[in-house]
Each structure stands twice: as structure tokens, then as C-alpha cells.
């Protein structure tokens, strides 16, 4: 159920615009203008709202997970990136975390072999995760050629790198293959590994199928079922310059690609995909381990009922005196 249902949901999401624009041209305005604007609005507002909502809850305690030697005596070498004690060191830790998935890199696999537990290397998840996220970012940035009139040279360089091998025409992008491979791996892993299948929800399969469909539709459009690319850019520029137009003859597959992206954008703020924002707010990673150096303040700290020394002495005064302990009151 949790695998099949998301799959068919994505199939329906593909068929919807496909039939829409093939059967009735009027729907192009829906798929080409209304949905993209709605998706953009939901994405931006939803994302801001979710993060702001997290931000409304304070971090009452300084709870970094320390993964190395603390700042201690001057002759003991502190692990500044794994156990940061200053803001700059925290920035370093976060950069490692966000850019190269430092924590996931530690991953290993536990197995029972010959009657004892052994821990083997397991870097595939890290590699696939890194490959997926970085190629996604590359592809996302590459799409800027549809959104600006004069493409910055940085993005042109990225394209150059991505199509370095100059295979075929239009030039083959490496990231297209990488993202397909990585998403497929992540999907197969979820179905095939018993532990991962057991913990997976429909909400874990849906974004994978969706992203896979987006990647496939994009690849089909670029290499196989060509669309009127100049018209696509006109539509895109129309959207972002707030003068939407629907050029003639773009091709149905473009609307499929666009619609799936819109679904992803709309789904984003309501889903686990918010880990993109959440990773920056994780208190175990974004705090300095300096709570013994600087007092950390809890905004809702409140007085509590304690058992005072006076009460304690009242309970035990006789026994204390008998044992020769000093007391406050005789």
C-alpha cells in the first residue's frame, strides 16, 4: 500500500496535464500560468511559515551532540569542527553538515557474523544522498537559463562542466544521469532493505516517485520528445516578469514536467522535505558546546519547589549532631 499508492498518485499527476493540454488547449493557461503562480506562492509562504513556526519555539537548553574532544586544558587538542565552542566553529560544523553530509558519512552497517556483531563500512547511502542533492542543485541552477535574459557566466560555466564530455546533441548533462541513478538507488533501497522498508511511510515513497517523474520528463523533453524551447523560455520569462503569456505549440510533455514541479513545490512545505530548512535549526548541530563557559538562558525558566537545606536539617538534625556534623540551628 505505502509503495503502490504513491506510485499511482504520481501516475495520475502525470496524466492530468497530459490529457488536459492535449484535449483542450484552454487548459494551457491553467497549467502554464495559474498552477505555477499558486505553487510558487504556496512554496514560498509555506516554507517561511514552517520555519517561522519552528522559530517560535525557543531552544531552552544548550544541547549540542558533541562528536569530538571538548575545549579543555590548553594542551589538550580540541576537535573544533566536531565539538565547536565558538560561533565560527559552529559555522564550520554546519557547513560540513550541509555541504558534505558529515554525519551521514559516519554511517556503518551492523551485522551479526559468527556469533558477534561486526560493523562494516556503509558509504552508499551517503554517496547516493550527496549525489542526489548536488545534482538536484546543479540542475536547478542550470534551469536559470530559462529565467534570465542574460545568463551569468558562472551558470554557463556550470553547464560547461556538466556537459564536459560533449556527448550527443543537445549535449548530454552528467547530472541527468546522476540524479536518475541516485533516486533509483534510494527508491530500491527503500523497497529492498527490510529495515528501511519497515520504517518507510507512503510519504517517503511519494517524493521519490515524484522527483523521478520530474527527472524522467525533463530528460525525455531534452533528448527525445523535443519541445519548442524558445517558446518555453518565453513562457518562463512571462511568468517571472509578471506578464504571463502562453506561446503556441510548446508540446504536452513540457506541461507535464512543469506541473510535476509545481506539485513538488506545493507539497514541499507540508512534508518531510522541509528538512532543507530544518537542518539549519537542529539544536544538536547548530549550537556551540560552551554552556560551562557562558550561561545559557532558558526564556521559560521558572522557579520550582525544592527541598531546602533548612528542611533537610530539620529532618535529620539529631542524627547529624550525633554523627558530629555541623548544623545551622542547635
Amino acid at each position: 500500500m505505502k509503495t503502490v499508492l504513491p506510485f499511482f498518485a504520481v501516475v495520475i499527476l502525470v496524466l492530468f496535464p497530459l490529457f488536459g493540454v492535449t484535449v483542450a488547449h484552454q487548459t494551457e493557461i491553467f497549467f502554464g500560468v495559474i498552477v505555477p503562480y499558486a505553487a510558487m506562492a504556496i512554496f514560498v509562504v509555506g516554507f517561511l511559515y514552517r520555519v517561522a513556526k519552528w522559530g517560535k519555539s525557543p531552544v531552552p537548553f544548550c544541547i549540542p551532540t558533541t562528536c569530538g574532544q571538548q575545549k579543555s586544558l590548553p594542551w589538550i587538542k580540541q576537535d573544533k569542527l566536531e565539538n565547536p565552542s565558538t560561533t565560527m566553529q559552529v559555522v564550520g560544523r554546519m557547513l560540513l553538515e550541509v555541504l558534505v553530509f558529515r554525519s551521514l558519512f559516519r554511517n556503518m552497517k551492523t551485522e551479526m557474523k559468527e556469533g558477534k556483531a561486526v560493523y562494516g563500512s556503509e558509504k552508499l547511502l551517503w554517496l547516493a544522498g550527496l549525489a542526489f542533492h548536488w545534482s538536484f542543485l546543479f540542475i536547478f541552477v542550470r534551469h536559470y537559463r530559462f529565467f534570465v535574459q542574460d545568463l551569468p557566466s558562472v551558470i554557463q560555466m556550470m553547464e560547461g562542466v556538466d556537459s564536459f564530455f560533449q556527448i550527443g546533441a543537445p549535449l548530454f548533462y552528467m547530472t541527468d544521469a546522476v540524479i536518475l541513478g541516485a533516486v533509483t538507488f534510494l527508491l530500491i533501497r527503500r523497497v529492498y532493505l527490510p529495515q528501511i522498508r519497515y520504517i518507510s511511510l507512503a510519504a517517503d515513497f511519494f517524493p521519490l516517485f515524484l522527483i523521478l517523474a520530474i527527472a524522467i520528463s525533463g530528460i525525455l523533453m531534452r533528448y527525445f520528445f523535443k519541445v519548442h524551447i524558445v517558446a518555453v523560455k518565453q513562457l518562463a520569462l512571462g511568468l517571472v516578469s509578471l506578464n504571463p503569456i502562453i506561446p503556441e505549440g510548446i508540446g504536452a510533455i513540457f506541461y507535464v514536467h512543469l506541473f510535476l514541479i509545481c506539485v513538488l513545490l506545493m507539497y514541499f512545505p507540508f512534508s518531510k522535505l522541509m528538512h532543507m530548512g530544518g537542518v539549519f535549526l537542529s539544536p544538536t548541530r547548530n549550537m556551540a558546546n560552551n554552556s560551562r563557559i557562558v550561561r545559557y538562558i532558558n526564556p521559560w525558566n521558572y522557579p520550582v519547589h525544592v527541598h531546602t537545606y533548612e528542611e533537610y536539617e530539620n529532618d535529620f538534625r539529631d542524627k547529624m549532631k550525633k554523627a558530629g556534623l555541623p548544623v545551622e540551628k542547635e
Partner: protein
Amino acid sequence: MYNSGKIIAGLVVFFFLATLPFLLNFGKANAKIEPSIDTPEINAMPKKHCVEPKAFMRSEHMQLLNNWRDQVVRNGNRIYVGSDGNEYTISLQNTCMKCHSNKKKFCDKCHNYMAVKPYCWGCHIAPKEKEA
């Protein structure tokens, strides 16, 4: 503690990045792009036609050119038979550019618009611009 300052700064950065395409195009007109076929050679043609129909050429010209290059360079074949049955000499300079002698208003028009940099002109020399 709330770290409101850092969160708000982060959200401003997010908002900026997420809406960057809108910001970059703010107030800019959306130019209509149409490659020009207004050259003396094309105008002189009794019936205007390319080696393949216009729709095919629009989306597949890069693949056609890629094939042509392979045909000439690897197979030594200089003859292309179009889907209309006519034979054409495979040559960028002498076939394509003979008619489309206005590279700037024909090729570059869309390529620049789409920020595509075909590597044709890495080897070939662009012909002199001609216009009607």
C-alpha cells in the same frame, strides 16, 4: 533562546533566492524571438524550403548537424537525402549557411536567447553577414 535574528536573516536569504528569477526580471519586457529568414538567397528561392520541414528543423537541427558531421568526418559521406527525396550536399558552410547567410539574425538569435553556445564555430568560420 530564540535566535530570531539568525532565523530571520536565513529566511530573508531564502526569500531572496526563491524569488530571484522574479527580482532579476522585474520591469523587463519579454522580447518575442523569431529568427530571420530574410536573406537574399532565401528571398530568391521560388519555393522556400530547407532540407527538412520547419518544425523538424526547429527542434532537431542540432541532431541533424551532429549526424552530418559524423557522416562527413567519419564516413566520408557528403550526400544527405531529405525526407522530401531531394539530395543535399552535407556542408555547414555551403549548404546551411549558403541560404542562412545571416548568422547573427538567424543562429545567434535563438542561441543567445536560450544561452546556448554551440561549438560549430569552434572549427568553422562564420560566413560574412548578408542581409536582404
